[in-house]
């Protein structure tokens, strides 16, 4: 089964605008995490939301989780050129398993 299918695949916005990325998953999760990857670099953990949470904030990031729709969204407010990166969601099933299943990611370009 697949977890973490993001849309859109690519998003281009002007600096200062908000960016919203969506993620859908197919099997049950214990937690869902969002990561950022700058081109050719490692993955940076952004935020984790647990299955019993509906919304979480961290600085300019807002994550929502709708377990009934098996979907999550990541909102970056007041985007900056430095936010240009690929963003991935990754589902963790818990229940003694810690592996993450990643989606293909959304490539965000923030134009100065």
């Amino acid at each position, binding site marked *: 089964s697949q977890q973490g299918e993001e849309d859109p695949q690519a998003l281009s916005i002007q600096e200062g605008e908000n960016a919203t990325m969506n993620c859908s998953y197919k099997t049950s999760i214990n937690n869902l995490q969002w990561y950022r990857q700058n081109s050719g670099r490692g993955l940076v*953990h952004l935020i984790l939301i647990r299955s019993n949470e509906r919304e979480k904030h961290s600085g300019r990031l807002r994550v929502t989780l709708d377990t009934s729709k098996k979907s999550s969204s990541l909102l970056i407010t007041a985007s900056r050129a430095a936010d240009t990166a690929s963003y991935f969601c990754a589902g963790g099933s*818990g229940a003694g398993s*810690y*592996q*993450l299943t990643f989606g293909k990611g959304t490539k965000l370009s923030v134009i100065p």
Partner: protein
Amino acid sequence: EPEVTQTPSHQVTQMGQEVILRCVPISNHLYFYWYRQILGQKVEFLVSFYNNEISEKSEIFDDQFSVERPDGSNFTLKIRSTKLEDSAMYFCASSDAARASYEQYFGPGTRLTVT
């Protein structure tokens, strides 16, 4: 801030050769992982390691792969006989899952090129 480190950053090897990718996880973390990302594709889970043994592995992690924690700080991934399709970015990650903290912290990756 503590971070996961990986060496080398880039490894070029010939098909059939053995390679060892090295990682130093965050010091107080107890769970360690390897993932790979073939160019343009998803990040894929390979293996997780806890208490000196493999706790989970994916279908990708076949007999050509092995992991080891040779000392108190290093965590290695060995590919015994590399194939062209092993060319990918390999990421090591660690987590403090013992505190039920599921966040995984990734290293910068090793780009493996098999020719």
